[in-house]
């Protein structure tokens, strides 16, 4: 039997041959080519472990949110048994989308088309006139919602439909250690629903930016220093550039002038983290990163209204075509955060990131401009330059796992991102 998976055409194979991360060359057509995009959906988004929700978004039995895994719609639901399941939001009868809300609480989902009814565990429990119309050949047992494999780390829920994928722990590799700093340092919760907006850009541009690009902060975000949120335009230069395995990248801003979190939370962090992790948290000035392929995160600290405040966020770049992203951004907060810290932290998140954020606005300008340019028949052939730090970066010791390089300005993580991307696109993963 032939596979219905997209297989690279000769043309696609030729396109992939032009992607040379080891030489610091990434061609512009990666950000707009429809064939590349189709292959990404099959070979990256249908195979990788993808972030779908934070546990606190579905705290109670029956709670659900709807999300996307690539272009596949899914329901993330907590059953009466307390387990979180991730199910394709597609009726097994005729393929109708069965849940059409962003979030809610329900014991079951009923398809609008013919009334097929599924429990929030995915089990098909009701088919109108089943006995009469299906001549006793009960179809309920074999027609449950398609279930993804689900695993969590530090409250972050990941899923994959690939039965052949390894474990989430194998997938995250060294990145798990840094995700503990991000989302495991205390019991964390999302503050309300995510911001959502449609960014007219290719999903890889923000993903590689958060994984690798501290360099842009100096110029793209120069306005932020000018209005006093950060001490200087080069505030994001010092620290470490960490290749965290499997295309993941994280950057450690260090040292900090002062502890960026609420003092009251120190004992919580010390209790929950390993000593080496706590030691890094004490020195941390900020921490952007990307879990391959499309979950980015950030711990950021700014001076707002004469007060120094940090916030922690997740950003997901949901692809909606080669040149569209349904951006989701969540604010994560320690459950035990003092109320005044919580309020200022929320304001810092909104004022700096999210669609009205004074940093996010200018990032969007770059991502959309590159995407537009990448469609030009001449521009699309350009090999864009990713060679910063090739063969010159110095390793740093005593920070954390992964390949740790001295200094944040580097493009090693972007090369790592595209190296992993290329392996998956060629089907050799």
């Amino acid at each position, binding site marked *: 039997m032939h596979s219905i998976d997209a297989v690279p055409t000769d043309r696609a194979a030729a396109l992939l041959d032009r992607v040379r991360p080891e030489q610091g060359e990434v061609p512009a057509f990666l950000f707009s080519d429809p064939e590349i995009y189709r292959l990404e959906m099959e070979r990256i988004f249908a195979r990788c472990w993808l972030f779908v929700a934070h546990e606190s978004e579905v705290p109670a039995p029956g709670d659900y949110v709807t999300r996307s895994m690539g272009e596949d719609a899914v329901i993330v639901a907590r059953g009466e048994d307390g387990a979180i399941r991730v199910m394709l939001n597609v009726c097994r009868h005729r393929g109708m989308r069965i849940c059409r809300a962003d979030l809610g609480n329900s014991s079951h989902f009923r398809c609008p088309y013919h009334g097929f009814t599924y429990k929030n565990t995915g089990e098909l429990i009701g088919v109108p006139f089943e006995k009469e119309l299906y001549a006793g050949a009960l179809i309920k047992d074999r027609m449950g919602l398609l279930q993804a494999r689900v695993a969590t780390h530090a409250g972050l829920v990941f899923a994959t439909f690939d039965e052949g994928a390894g474990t989430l722990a194998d997938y995250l590799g060294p990145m798990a250690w840094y995700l503990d700093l991000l989302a495991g340092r205390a019991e964390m919760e999302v*503050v309300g629903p995510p911001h959502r907006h449609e960014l007219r850009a290719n999903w890889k541009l923000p993903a590689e930016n958060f994984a690798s690009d501290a360099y842009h902060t100096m110029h793209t975000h120069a306005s932020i220093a000018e209005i006093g949120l950060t001490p200087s335009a080069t505030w994001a230069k010092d620290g470490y550039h960490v290749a965290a395995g499997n295309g993941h990248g994280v950057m450690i801003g260090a040292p900090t002038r002062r502890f960026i979190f609420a003092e009251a939370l120190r004992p919580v962090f010390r209790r929950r983290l390993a000593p080496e992790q706590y030691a890094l948290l004490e020195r941390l000035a900020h921490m952007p990163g990307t879990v391959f392929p499309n979950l980015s995160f950030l711990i950021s600290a700014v001076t707002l209204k004469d007060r120094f405040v940090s916030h922690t966020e997740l950003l997901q770049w949901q692809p909606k075509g080669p040149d569209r992203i349904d951006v989701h951004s969540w604010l994560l907060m320690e459950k035990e955060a003092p109320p005044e810290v919580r309020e200022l932290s929320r304001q810092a998140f909104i004022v700096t990131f999210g669609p009205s954020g004074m940093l996010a*606005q*200018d990032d969007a300008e770059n991502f959309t401009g590159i995407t537009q340019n990448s469609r030009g028949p001449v521009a699309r052939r350009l090999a864009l330059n990713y060679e910063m730090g090739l063969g010159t970066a110095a390793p740093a010791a005593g920070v954390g796992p992964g390949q740790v390089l001295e200094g944040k300005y580097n493009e090693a993580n972007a090369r790592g991102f595209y190296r992993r991307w290329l392996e998956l696109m060629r089907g050799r993963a």
Partner: protein
Amino acid sequence: MSAQGAGATGVPADVRVEVLEFLHHEAELLDDGRLDEWLELLTEDVSYAMPVRLTRERGQEPAVSAEMQFFQDDLATLRLRVRRLRTDFAWAEDPPSRTRHFVANARVAPGPTPDEVDVRCNVLVYRNRGASAASDLISGERRDRLRRVGGAWKLARRVFVPDQATLGVDNLAIFV
């Protein structure tokens, strides 16, 4: 009509005219990019919010988030935003976009004090930028509170409830 010209809303007709003039003047300042003058229209204690809109099943509330907002600003942060736009590095609005604020269906009701009124109106913001013919449309309802300060109306509170759960904009580098 009562002696003061108050209609069914309990707000005198001359006040309703002043409120409409305020809204139209504010839209002009925003569309002309006269943001320093716009800041002058705000009270010292202004709150400026734009909550996240949600798609919920009928009967499951709320469909407007009480916890997360696209704007959660006060005078200090609004001033910061305007200052940033004045720097040489505010790429998202340089070149600036062209906006048109259409303000309609204004309904004026008495506020909690004699010097305040509550105003609901429908707003459509058209935004175009660069050479592209494609445009952003931001549609929503403003729930404003205006306060008379020293003889002039000022904006004391704005809640802009957007009609999109996923905003169709690359960024919100403008004001609604």
